[in-house]
């Protein structure tokens, strides 16, 4: 068992709200609508569906890791033994790494498509890597503090009021005319937008009285579900189905038309401000990588962080074209689905069984003595 995290490194339990909400708000916000198109105008239902089902996953994580608070590395070690457990933990490092890579690369894509077509990829990536290094080397407190500033971005969602004025509620009708299979298919392909619960497996012990603040994790998920559903509904009202199929960046296209006397092309502000969420979103998984490496192989973060970031830089540069990024997104989406809906429940069940067996053994031991 790891020792308890010292008081001055831990953060208040309700911060889990920001940590989850910010990760779920990442770059996919700009074009997530196209992911859920199997269900046509019922796409918002599939988003609610996946949001609701993830509450169960959060409940499982808290049940599995709480009392006393531990991380998934401990669970791996107690359930599978030290060697297999550590190998599993290292596989999870790969998962977090891919997650960080996806967030970073898709935001860089947005920058290149919308603002700076001529800016070299390595420049953007290099700048980001510098900031990420600076933030992550400050420790978990700084990473969490960064995620707190997501709060300042929440008022920006009120900009979606403007497209609704031009929207047509009639486009949402008829409701429920897609089969359940279509709806589930579309939830499956949009799982990526709810990315961000799984770092909880690592940072849970860093939350003060984490168990007590489970409700904040649920609130975060609820907030994200609400946000995405609302944006989805606005999108469906704004675009017709035919037009939406040919729009690559629906969120941008909607905010593009907002104009004031002092600023036009509002999506520029949107894109730049979005850095405030991208940085914590990338930093949290990267921090998880260094944390696992420290706990499993006892590599110091001072050594593993530059290594991980160099790998991140190289990987971000190898993904060059739109098609590659799309394919990578689909791959990550599949990984996320298996991670959320297969791996975590499986681990939960195994842990539960092992705990019961151990409990029984203890009881029998007590009986014998």
């Amino acid at each position, binding site marked *: 068992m790891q020792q308890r995290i010292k008081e001055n490194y831990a953060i208040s339990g309700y911060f889990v709200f920001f940590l989850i909400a910010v990760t779920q708000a990442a770059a996919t916000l700009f074009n997530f609508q196209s992911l859920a198109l199997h269900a046509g105008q019922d796409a918002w239902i599939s988003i609610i569906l996946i949001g609701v089902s993830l509450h169960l996953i959060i409940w499982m994580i808290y049940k599995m890791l709480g009392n006393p608070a531990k991380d998934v590395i401990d669970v791996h070690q107690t359930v599978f033994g030290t060697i297999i457990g550590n190998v599993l933990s290292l596989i999870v490092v790969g998962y977090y790494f891919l997650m960080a890579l996806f967030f970073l690369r898709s935001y860089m894509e947005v920058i290149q498509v919308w*603002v700076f077509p001529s800016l070299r990829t390595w420049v953007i990536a290099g700048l980001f890597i510098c900031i990420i290094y600076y*933030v992550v080397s400050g420790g978990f407190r*700084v990473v969490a503090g960064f995620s707190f500033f997501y709060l300042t971005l929440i008022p920006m969602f009120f900009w979606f009021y403007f497209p609704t004025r031009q929207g047509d509620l009639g486009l949402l009708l008829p409701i429920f005319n897609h089969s359940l299979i279509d709806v589930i298919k579309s939830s499956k392909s949009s799982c990526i937008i709810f990315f961000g619960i799984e770092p909880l497996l690592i940072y849970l012990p860093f939350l003060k009285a984490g168990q007590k603040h489970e409700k904040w994790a649920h609130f975060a998920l609820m907030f994200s579900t609400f946000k995405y559903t609302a944006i989805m509904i606005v999108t469906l009202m704004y675009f017709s189905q035919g037009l939406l199929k040919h729009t690559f960046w629906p969120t941008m296209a909607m905010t593009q038309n907002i104009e004031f*006397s002092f*600023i*036009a092309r509002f999506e*520029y502000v949107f894109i*730049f401000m979005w850095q*405030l969420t991208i940085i914590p979103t990338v930093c949290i998984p990267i921090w998880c990588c260094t944390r696992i490496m420290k706990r499993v192989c006892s590599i110091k973060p001072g050594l593993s962080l530059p290594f991980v970031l160099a790998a991140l830089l190289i990987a971000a540069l190898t993904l060059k074209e739109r098609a590659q990024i799309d394919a990578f997104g689909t791959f990550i989406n599949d990984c996320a689905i298996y991670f959320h809906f297969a791996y975590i429940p499986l681990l939960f069940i195994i842990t539960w069984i092992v705990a019961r067996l151990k409990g029984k053994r203890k009881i029998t031991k007590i009986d014998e003595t």
Partner: protein
Amino acid sequence: MLPNLLHDLKESTKSADLLQSCITINNNRIYFTYFSTLINQEKFHHDVLSFIQLSKGDWNHLHLQDLQAMIPLEGMKISEELDEVIKSLVRGSIFLQLDPHLHEGLIIDLSDQKSGLRDHNDTENEFSVIGPKVGFVESLDINLSLLRRGFGTEKLTFEELSIGKMSKTRIVIAYLDGITNPEYINTARQRLSDLDFDIVFESSLLEQLITDNSNSPFPLFLSSERLDRIMYSVLNGEVAILCDGSPFVLTRPTSLFSFFVSPEDYYLPWILGSCFRLIRYFGVAFSILASSFYVAILTFHYIVIPRELLGPIIESRSNVPFPPVLEVLFLEMTIELLREAGSRLPSKVSQTLGIVGGIILGQAAVAAGLTSNILLIIVSLSALASFTTPIFKISNTIRFLRFPLIVLASFWGGFGIMIGLMFILGHLLRLKSLGAPYIVPIFPFRNNSFSDSFIRSSFTQLNNRFFTTRPLSTKRFNVKKNKDIGDDYNNE
């Protein structure tokens, strides 16, 4: 053989102001050794010499102890140690010896506390229209008495240390016993006593030596010369550090937001106070960002300018041959030069300089086609806005932060500005002041401190101290709304 201190003292320094004089009473010689530049001559004649001459003792069997009892001064000591004697001589004592017993003598403290120091300070650097204009001065004793008189409580505790290998400057840590968190007191004491430095001139120098992060443009200590401001900080459970010879007092742990608080906020009604405070925050944001926005928008994102605004901007820039970066840097440098020159010149000359530099130079630059009118407005407004901060140190920081952002904006536009801001945010999150987070109450989030951070709420809301300084006792006062009992909606 016993050492001859009189002779040793003469040997120890070549300085001309070390005087050794001798008076003779009833054939007994009494020697005095002192630095004539340090002691209070009047006190010497009035309190020492007159008592010795008037006394009717048995002069043949006189001892130092008798003299000690005779002279009505405190802080006297009999010593045989040369080092100790020298140490007290350079602090303004005299050394008195009776003739045959030259191995020992009496140290009498006659230091002149007020010589070479001004006796009042008008807080010219932190001016406020309303409120007391009493400021700290260079003398530590006067500062301490100002604080003690202001608080009027025995809870106010002074801890004295001496720092500086050469200067042995007196440093005082002041705090309210039972309110200030002992953790901060211990950290401050620890850092101060670990310090190894030669001469401490100023408390701001001390600040850099005991700061948590010396590689930061942000001031991690709040330093002020206003009595009311320091009292307010101490009252809220902060530790004040006073340094002899400096009119600035440091308080810690401080948060970034306390630099934008002016004592005047509390003297005005809360609505006005809050409003002016918000204007100050706006001024800071404007001052940091305005010119870099100009560069970013005109270089890369001209698309975000609305159609109606495009006309005036094109018109004013049509004669300017430079790219926006050069234009902005040129004008910013002009303003910085004016500011730097203005702060070094005598106040009467600097007024003229302001007119010449500000108005004539600016107009001429526009007329010559070096800069655009709009930029002139932006840059001078942002210079003006940076002066709204009540503390000079943070205004320097703001002034500095502008330049990296302009350079970033010229390379990568809005993306570059955001990268810069993210670095600043990351830096702020990492900073600590005396081990306490720097941007409290935002992170860590302290819900109860928001009544006095961005706005200054009514005193009925401010009854408690804030958790930001983790005080031991939170209750401050109990202000209730004054209600007319008979006055209700129906006037019954």
